[in-house]
């Protein structure tokens, strides 16, 4: 069963490699945008462009995920991953909705929207073993 947790075919290897670069790209652009706004005193159109910049690797990561689902020839593995993605979406939307309500109703600390994207991937990682256990 352990091979489920490892790279078990070329499509998964390519996916992990591409996601590594997409994640790195995301961290670099997010940091560049944050530093540009904080220390570069960027305003106007440039500020809007800097705000949009970190979305590029997010779109890239989703394209990479789509490419993996196309390239994955093992339909069972593909099924597991789709379920984990749906689990990640469900958990992210639920948590952010509940948190938003809590901010309004009981004044819990504000959750910056910038955390939604990393939270999604954390929840996908959480969902994957849960999905996997269903088929043991």
């Amino acid at each position, binding site marked *: *069963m352990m*091979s*489920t947790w490892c790279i*078990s*075919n070329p499509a998964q290897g390519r996916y992990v490699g591409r996601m590594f670069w997409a994640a790195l790209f995301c961290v670099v652009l997010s940091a560049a945008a944050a530093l540009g706004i904080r220390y570069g005193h960027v305003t106007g159109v440039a500020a809007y462009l800097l705000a949009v910049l970190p979305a590029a690797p997010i779109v890239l990561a989703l394209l990479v995920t789509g490419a993996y689902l196309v390239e994955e*020839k*093992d*339909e*069972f*593995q593909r*099924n597991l991953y789709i379920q984990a993605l749906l689990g990640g979406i469900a958990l992210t939307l639920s948590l952010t909705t509940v948190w938003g309500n809590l901010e309004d109703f009981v004044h819990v600390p504000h959750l910056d929207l910038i955390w939604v994207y990393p939270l999604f991937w954390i929840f996908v990682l959480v969902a994957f073993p849960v999905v996997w256990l*269903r*088929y043991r």
Partner: protein
Amino acid sequence: MKNRLRVLRAEREWSQGELAKRLEVSRQSVNAIETGKFDPSLPLAFRLARLFGMTIEEIFTDEDRV
């Protein structure tokens, strides 16, 4: 959907890993199909049938059929 995969595999003395290799899928896929937790697509069912030299109906049982 019920199937005779475990029996057919045992008759040929193949492990799940061996069958998975012949089908070019993961061992988890074979296990999930064998235990009836995952129904294969038609192309994979045909690959299984070809591998065992049988028809799909001889391997898989349609439980809804009266």
